[in-house]
Structures are given as structure tokens and as C-alpha cells.
């Protein structure tokens, strides 16, 4: 079987260290595990067939592939696993350790931003008698945990043991743009462990989800802790996943005494500077660059952006993390040395999603006379390996330079499929479309509607920071279009999204 590595890697980045708490004694006697008892039947192997979308030839179905991970029963016919285990799945099969029978399953909810998914067996009968696993809390440092799952190295259930090494705010590599609380353990976590429970005292304290390759670091595995899991489960209670909410502001530590004095914090160690504010985010109308956040929901914010929360020093975002769209938080901040207070209604900040990997989505595109237009996102950038300086700049600075305000969905001319009609245009692939016949292109749909207008004899496509417009004579382009579609074996000339 083709095993896809389900544990993805990411580069080390140094974040402010978390203060280690002295760990109280919590003896956990090592007990032998009796597989015959059925106590472990709730931990299942998930065998997945996937179809990886093709962002180079977006009209094609993609590349069939497969993988395997772990999941566990948390309620009546409800299995929790990682989003990355079941992403892009075309078929999901559940197997338990004592029963060779595969059981087809389907996704109920999937949350890519926190790498969690809930799946159910199509026929629940087999799992009715199984006992769901219970959740614990945040385990303390240096306490023992076991990871249970179906990692590489064999077919049957595996158990590894270790201690909790660190509790920290970490990037989640599935989307590569989201960070949440994560717990580091030194129990071996290997490809295939993904989605499996990490247990302490018989209760689930996390879901194993990512680690480093042995060449980078030893004995470093990460699990998604209970607060993140609970948040996911609460979010979907209304039958819909609404995603995380975000302040959508960047902070800069106030370490410099002059900075502290000038901003009016007087160096008491409280208050972090607001260094960037997304106009489309939750605090876009509330905070300004140069403000100093003093507290968030009455939790004092330290000068490096940490708060003491549930006994631990954590990133202040952790308080926002636990909230849901529409929830309110109280902010206390300094502006021009004066203390102010505001109530913020939290919402999701959409533009950043484009910068992360997306799954379970059919690539969107428009093809016209051999010109292939696709919306700019990470999947597209990765697939096309775009080196063009303007496209790289727009992608890299989509948030930092607030480019999303003017152009919420930049459209890239990704390819020109050569034909007599477009032979002079082939060097202009990998450009951002600025205007078509005078219409500013803010989304892929704009391309479709601008091309559909037949009022002009020429189609003039202006590209961002490129020296000449691309010009097609409409009658020639329309005559060439079906020919090109046939030659290059393109089934449909556009897919702009489900209505």
C-alpha cells in the first residue's frame, strides 16, 4: 500500500519560552494492556483513498493516492481524527484492532484550521457496543502519557509511552498559517499515529498530529490538547463549523525602555504594542498602530504579548482562541498615554486563508482561448512554482501591505496553452490580471463576466506591472476556443465555485 506520510514537518521557529511549572507527583503505574478486553476497540485504523487536486491542470480530477491514520470513538458513531488524515478523501474505511472487516465511513465535520475532523461509520451497527473514550484536561509537565494508534511498522494497534515536555502556542502545519495551543510529548509519534488519542489515566488528553523528522530533532511529537478539541466540538454543535476567530492584529514586544516610556507603559512589564492592524479584522475599527494592549478580558497582557491563563503563561491569542464568531471580548489599551476600553465582537479574518493550504476543494479556473486563469492561493503557488516577482510580492505581502483590500482574490494568468491565436502571449504566463476591457479584476468571477461581455471587438487584458496588454481579437479567440479545448483535452472551460 502506498503510505502517505501523515505527519508533516515544519521548520523550527523560536517563540517566547513558557515557564515550566514544578510538576506535582502523579504516579501512573504501567499496566499491561489486554487487547482482548475490548477497551481499545474504540481506537480505530482509518484507511483513506485520496484524490489530490491538480492545480496545474485544474480541469483534471487529480492524482489518486492513499494513506492511513488513526481515529477514536468519542460518542455514538462519532470518531475523532485529524483533518489531514481524511483531507481530499474519496473513500474512508474504518478498521478496529480485533475485527478484520472494513467499515465505510464519511466525514461529518472537518476543521482544517485546527486539523481536526469528525467522521462516522455509514453503518453504525458494528460500533454500537463500543465504549467511547473520555476527555481529561491539560496534563502537567513531566507526567506520563501514552500514544495509541496505528503507526508505520506493523498493522496492529501500537502503544508508545512518554512524558509531557512542553505546552506552547505552535504553528499547525496542516494549513501552515494557523497556530494554536499544542502539547509536546516525547512518546514516539510516527506517521500513522495521526488522529490517535494520547491518554493519561485512561482519559484522552490530546490527539497526536505532528512531529519532526528524526534528522531535525529527536523525541519531539505534538498533540492537539483538549481545549482545542473541545472548542471544535462546541463549534460544530450547531451543525456547522464556523472556524476560529482572530483579532487580526500583530503585536510587537515592548522591550525597549524608550519605547515603554514613549508609549506610556512606564516599563511595568505590562502592555504589548500594536504593530499592525488588519482593516478587515475584528479590531480593524478599534485599535491603531502604536496602541498598547493592557489587558484582554481582564487578564493583564505582559510586554511580550503573554497572559497568565489557567495557571500557565500563554500567548494572549489563546483567550481569543477559545471564543466563537460573534462572541465579545473586553480590551483595555493605551492610546497616547490614555487608558481606553473597548468591547470587540470577534469574527473570522478571511484573507489569511488564501495564504494557507486548502483541501477538499475543486480547483477553480477559467480557460479562454488557451489562457488559463486561476485565483491566487497557496495551492496554486506551490503547484506552479511561480517565480515571477510581482506574483511573489502580492502573495508574500497580501496581508502585510493590505493588498486584499483592493484585490480580495488576485487572479493569476497561470498558463497559455499555445495555439495560433495566442502564440505571442505565451511569455506572459505567471502574471496577475489587473483589468480586462477596463474592468478591474477582483475575483475569478470578474474574469468570467468580463470575458463574457461581447460589446467590444478586442479583448484587452492588462497585467499587473507588465509592460504591454495582452490583446485578442474576439472573433478569432472565440473561433479558437473550442479547438484549444479539444486539443488540450479540457472537459469544462471554467469552474468558478459551487453556487
Amino acid at each position, binding site marked *: 500500500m502506498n503510505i502517505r506520510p501523515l505527519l508533516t514537518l515544519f521548520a523550527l521557529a523560536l517563540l517566547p519560552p513558557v515557564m515550566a511549572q514544578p510538576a506535582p507527583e502523579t504516579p501512573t503505574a504501567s499496566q499491561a494492556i489486554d487487547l482482548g478486553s475490548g477497551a481499545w476497540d474504540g481506537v480505530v485504523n482509518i484507511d483513506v483513498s485520496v484524490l489530490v487536486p491538480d492545480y496545474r491542470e485544474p480541469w483534471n480530477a487529480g492524482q489518486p493516492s492513499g494513506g492511513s491514520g488513526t481515529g477514536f470513538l468519542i460518542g455514538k458513531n462519532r470518531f475523532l481524527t485529524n483533518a489531514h488524515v481524511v483531507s481530499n478523501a474519496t473513500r474512508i474505511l474504518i478498521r478496529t484492532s480485533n475485527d478484520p472487516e472494513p467499515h465505510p465511513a464519511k466525514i461529518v465535520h472537518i476543521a482544517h484550521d485546527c486539523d481536526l475532523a469528525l467522521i462516522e461509520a455509514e453503518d453504525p451497527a458494528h460500533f454500537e457496543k463500543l465504549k467511547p473514550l473520555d476527555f481529561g484536561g491539560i496534563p502537567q509537565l513531566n507526567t506520563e502519557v501514552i500514544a495509541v494508534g496505528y503507526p508505520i511498522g506493523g498493522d496492529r494497534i501500537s502503544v508508545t509511552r512518554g512524558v509531557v515536555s512542553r505546552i506552547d502556542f505552535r504553528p499547525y502545519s496542516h494549513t501552515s498559517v494557523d497556530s494554536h495551543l499544542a502539547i509536546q510529548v516525547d512518546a514516539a509519534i510516527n506517521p500513522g499515529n495521526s488522529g490517535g488519542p494520547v491518554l493519561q489515566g485512561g482519559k484522552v488528553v490530546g490527539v497526536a498530529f505532528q512531529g519532526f523528522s528524526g534528522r531535525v530533532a529527536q523525541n519531539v511529537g505534538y498533540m492537539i490538547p483538549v481545549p482545542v478539541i473541545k472548542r471544535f466540538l462546541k463549534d460544530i454543535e450547531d451543525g456547522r463549523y464556523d472556524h476560529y476567530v482572530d483579532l487580526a492584529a500583530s503585536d510587537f514586544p515592548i522591550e525597549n525602555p524608550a519605547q515603554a516610556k514613549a508609549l506610556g507603559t512606564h516599563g511595568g512589564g505590562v502592555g504589548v504594542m500594536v504593530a499592525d492592524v488588519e482593516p478587515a479584522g475584528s479590531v480593524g475599527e478599534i485599535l491603531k498602530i502604536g496602541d498598547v494592549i493592557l489587558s484582554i478580558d481582564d487578564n493583564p497582557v505582559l510586554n511580550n504579548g503573554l497572559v497568565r491563563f489557567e495557571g500557565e503563561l500563554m500567548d494572549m491569542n489563546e483567550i481569543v482562541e477559545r471564543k466563537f464568531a460573534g462572541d465579545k471580548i473586553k480590551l483595555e489599551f493605551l492610546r497616547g498615554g490614555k487608558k481606553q476600553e473597548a468591547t470587540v465582537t470577534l469574527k473570522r479574518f478571511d484573507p489569511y486563508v488564501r495564504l494557507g493550504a486548502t483541501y477538499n476543494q475543486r480547483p477553480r479556473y477559467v480557460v479562454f482561448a488557451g489562457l488559463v486563469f486561476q485565483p491566487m492561493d497557496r495551492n496554486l503557488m506551490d503547484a506552479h512554482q511561480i517565480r515571477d516577482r510581482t506574483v511573489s510580492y502580492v502573495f508574500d505581502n497580501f496581508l502585510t501591505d493590505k493588498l486584499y483590500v483592493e484585490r480580495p482574490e488576485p487572479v493569476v494568468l497561470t498558463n497559455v496553452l499555445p495555439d495560433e491565436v495566442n502564440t505571442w502571449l505565451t511569455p506572459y504566463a505567471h502574471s496577475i490580471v489587473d483589468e480586462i476591457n477596463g474592468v478591474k479584476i477582483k475575483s475569478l468571477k470578474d474574469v468570467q463576466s468580463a470575458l463574457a461581455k461581447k460589446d467590444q471587438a478586442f479583448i484587452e487584458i492588462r497585467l499587473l506591472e507588465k509592460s504591454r496588454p495582452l490583446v*485578442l481579437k474576439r472573433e478569432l479567440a472565440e473561433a479558437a476556443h473550442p479547438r484549444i479545448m479539444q486539443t488540450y483535452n479540457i472537459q469544462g472551460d471554467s469552474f468558478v465555485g459551487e453556487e
Partner: protein
Amino acid sequence: MKLFTSFLLLATSASCLHAQSPGPAAPKKKRVLTNAAAAAQPTVQNSSLVKVNATSQSYNLHLPWQKESPSGRRGLGVVLAGNRVLVTAQMAADATYLELELPESGQKTPAKVVAVDYEANLALLESPPSDKQKAFFAGLKPMSIDASARIGDAVTILQTGRVGELIESPLNISKVMSRRYIVEGSGFLVYEATGIIRSEANSFTLPVVKGNKLAGLLLSYDSKNQVTTILPAPIIEHFLKDVADGSYEGFPGLGMELQATQDEQFREFLGLKPNEPGVLISAVVKGASAEQAGMKKGDILVSINGFTIDSRGDYKDPQYGALSAGHLVRGRAYVGDKVEMKVIREGKEVTLNGTLARKKPEAHLVLPYQFDRGPRYVLMGGLLFQELSQPYLDAFGEEQRSGAILRLARIATNPEKYEEAGRKKLVFLSLVLPTPGAQGYDKLGGQVVNKVNGKVINDLNDLAEAFKSAKETWHVIELDDFPHILHLDTFNAERDNMRLLGGAYRIGSLKRLE
């Protein structure tokens, strides 16, 4: 190993700058000369060739108060009238010591640069008058210049061996075109020739002769494809004529961007009939010759000085055939010359008249190249401010362009918005030295500076002035990028400045503004 790599990445902005040197330095060989072999060799043109030894030392672009390690360059210069020696500008770039050497006897005399043009890659050297200089030039006679070479002509590349013997490599000119030499900017005339060149140590200048006359200087040799590019005599003549009148103006440019119009649908869109000449003007540089003459973006350029410009942007040169229109101005005209251009604007032919000028490198928002002088900088309390230059960006290489460097590189290619805002140079925070006063800022670098103490910063002089007028006991530095605002205690900054002078970083001066 991977872990180590990750840490290196974190330190990218601090450690990855390396100035690019124009090429490998020739190894110095010391050998005792023997006279036995010399007599048998032909020495026809030897009386016009001298070896040129240069020591060059460039400034460190990242730590601008310091210089890189010196390196040696060697070349073969051509003696011209007035005992002046012609070499490529690469020979003279960042030179700390230049000397001339007679190929046979090894006699030497020091030299200095009379004129240099880095765009045209040419430099003229002179040895200060002395008895030594007189004796040195006594046996030398000037070589004359022949600009008549055409495609198909045979030329010879000259080199000298260890004892001054002449080594000749015959080549044939196969192509004439326009391309840039060693620095960013517009193209110059280039001969391309084919043939094998014997490899000797003289790497930075080699003369190319036609008969006994100078036809050009070697620009590059691709040994794999045996293709040579040559800096041709017409450009040398232009340079020498410009030098001769006492004030050097350089090569003029029009300052506009041409787009070929071969694409039939594009032609029809532009209103051009099939087989009609003309190219689209897609950009006009502010303040440059074309704009002064009234050229507008969107015009169709059909002729320059009576030469028709075809749909590729070429004209028919009487000597070379089809050649880029740029040469009409750059190679065939001088600064101050009149130029007449015909354009089609809104269907009508319009004649534009103007005077040719050259946009000096200093006039660019981002300095296109810099030699012989140190980069300008201001150091304040550990914060290093510089003006963006192309060499600074080039030092990062194409692969490392992301984040702040990508942002800065984009400004270099699209400077219009910043120029219109009145910026003369782009001042940015390039590095933070770990001083006590700059605590908390040491990971910053690459942020464009907008204001200091409320004053708009259009160049480093503005910055140096603005630091004199703090309104409080701290300086306020406003940046274009994250984290947007920095404060620096005025007293601590001065104290840190004093400590930096002569301290661990061996900083001799807190600024260079000349």
C-alpha cells in the same frame, strides 16, 4: 544537520551579505624571467600593449564602515595617444593601487584613473609624469582605433605570455547586437565572435585588433560554446571623444520602454496596418530625454533621426544591418545632440524634437551601481540606516528574495510611487547592532523609513538632520513596515554611539554622507 539549517535561516538578514566581485582574480605568479625564449616570438603590436596590475577593494555593503579584503586583477591595456592606457572599467573598479608593466622587461610605473564609465565599461589610465614614466613610455607607440569592423570580419585577440611573447587568437565577428555590459541599464553595441581563445592569466582586459588597429576589448568568453563578446571600437571612440573635450558627459539615453508589435492582433488593436513600421512606447521615464521631447506612453514610435524603426524595435544600420533602436541614441549620438522622433498618436503622425541627456546614476531612487565610494549610511544608537542600492539587493541573490528583501527589490523595479512622493533615495533600516539602547529591536532589518521625529525622510541627509531635533527625550522613528514605530532614548543613543566608535565593531565613523 537540519536543525542547524533552521537556525541559519533565522539569522539570514545578519549573515548572508557578500559583495559580488566582477570575476576571479588572477593568481599572482613570481618567476625569474629568462631571455632565451623571448627573441623567437613575434612582437609586432607589443610596442602598444602594457600589462596592467590592479588591486581592488570594495566596501562591505552590509557593514558599510568596513572594506572587503583586497584582491588583485590583471589585464592587458592599450597605449593610446598622450601616453594614456585604455582598459575596461572592471580593471579600475574600486582600485586601491594601479600600475603599468612592460610585458618584456617587467619595468613598472604607477597609474591613476583619468576617466571611467562603468555603464560603457571603459577606463582611461595615466601614469603621473616622472623620469620613470618617461622611460616607461619611451619605447611604446600609441595604437590607433578602427571602427570599421563588420559582420564576417576577422579579428585577433591579443595576450602576452610569461616573458612578454605575443599570443594571438583569431576570431570571426558573427553577430552585432545591443546588450548591457557590467551594470544595470540600457544596452550598448556588442560584437559577438566565434573561435577558440587560448587561456592566459590576463583576465580583465584583452585587446581585440583588426590588422594593427584596435577593434575592441574582450567582454566575455564562453569557452563551452566558444563564443566571445567584444566591446567594440565605436563605443571606445565615443568614450574617448567625450573624454577629450575636458568634461565627461557619458552616453545619452532616451529613457523609454519599447514593445515589439509583431503580434497581428495587437497591431490591429493599436491601429497599425500590416507591414507598417513602429513600436509601442509602454513607459516613459520621468525627466529623461524622451519625456522632455514630449513622448507619451501609448505613442507608436516610427522613426528616430530619419531611421525607420521596425516592428521589432530595430533600425537598419548601414554598417551592421538590423540593430536595436537604442544604438541610434546611445552609440551614435552625444549628450546635448538634437534628436528628432516621429510618432503616431491618435492616428496622426507627430514629430517630436528634443535634446539628448543622460540620467546620472545618482538621479535614480535606487542607485543602479556604485564603485570607488563607500555606501552612504547613518548609525544611530546601534540602528544602521542605509539608502537602497542595486548592489545591496544583488548581494542577496535571486534565491533569497523573500520577505523584506523581496519588498525592497520590488521598489527598485517600480520606483515611480516613491519618486512621485518626493523621495530622492529610499532610506531603510538595514541592521540593528545589539546596543543597550536598541534593546528589543535587534531582529529588525529591511524596513523603509518614512519619518524621524516628525520629519519626512527623503534621503540620508534628511535623516541625519532629523535626529538633531527630538521633541522629547526620545527619537521617534516611523517605518513603512512592521512594527511601524520605534522609539530610541536620545541620551542612551548618544552613549551607545560613543561606545560603538572604536568599540568591538571597529566603527571609525557614525555616518558617511559624502
